[in-house]
């Protein structure tokens, strides 16, 4: 399904890029933090779209579930609990221009050293059309040759983080 050179995939890519980068600018630029949080979710939704384009539907669903369903809500709650800080007059600190300079330099460095050399490479012909299925991913997670140990460590990390968060945020009494 092509309209000449302009494939629907390219269209979708453009759309998700706008969502992702526009959302990212919104996160960094919004004065109002709740708006920032909403922009963050727009941005992360765009990234879920990228995962779909990259034939990783499982990750896309988990992205929406974890980020929008859990982390987004968590952040919004934190913003509302620190309500007096939601609308700071000065968004950025005094070194904002230094930060901008550093960020720009980093971006240019990345472009020049990593991305421009691969420009035009890895086109449509070279990559395999089929990919590993979600079932294979599941098998890899739960089998000895795969990632069962990292998975256990990750679940331990989550438990520890949950306990830690409760202990830290609890009011002393």
């Amino acid at each position, binding site marked *: 399904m092509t309209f000449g050179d302009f494939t629907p995939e390219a269209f979708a890519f453009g759309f998700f890029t706008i969502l992702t980068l526009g959302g990212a600018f919104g996160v960094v630029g919004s004065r109002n933090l709740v708006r920032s949080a909403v922009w963050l979710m727009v941005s992360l939704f765009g990234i879920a779209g990228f995962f779909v384009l990259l034939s990783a539907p499982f990750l896309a669903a988990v992205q929406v579930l*974890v980020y929008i369903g859990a982390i987004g809500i968590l952040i919004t709650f934190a913003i509302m609990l620190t309500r007096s800080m939601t609308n700071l007059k000065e968004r950025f600190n005094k070194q904002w221009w230094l930060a901008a300079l550093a960020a720009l330099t980093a971006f240019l460095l990345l472009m020049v050293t990593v991305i421009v050399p691969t420009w035009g490479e890895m086109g449509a012909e070279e990559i395999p059309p089929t990919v590993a299925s979600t079932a294979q991913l599941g098998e890899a997670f739960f089998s000895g040759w795969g990632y069962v140990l990292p998975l256990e460590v990750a679940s331990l990390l989550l438990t520890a983080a949950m306990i830690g968060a409760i202990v830290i945020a609890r009011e002393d009494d």
Partner: protein
Amino acid sequence: MVPLWMFLTVAAALFVIGAYGVLARRNAVAVLMSVELMLNAVNINLVAFWRFSDPVASVSGQAFAAFIFVVAAAEAAVGLAIIISVYRSRYSVVVDDVDMLKW
């Protein structure tokens, strides 16, 4: 299929925007949100490299991205707990105000 360098460019831009947010925003929650952006930029890269290298036999890129989800969730939970705790004791979440360990 969209070529690899396009994904890499978007990921790099996202990472850099996030980095700017971390360096420049004053509100700690905004800093945390920018960290999430950076983590997600890394995720795009991981999945993109996986897709364009060996997506049939291995699932390493996806698996790594899934672990990053876990770490991001843990980081958000603990980070926000710390922010709320700081807000309780100092009535501020501006990162410049919390500088007792700075000399």
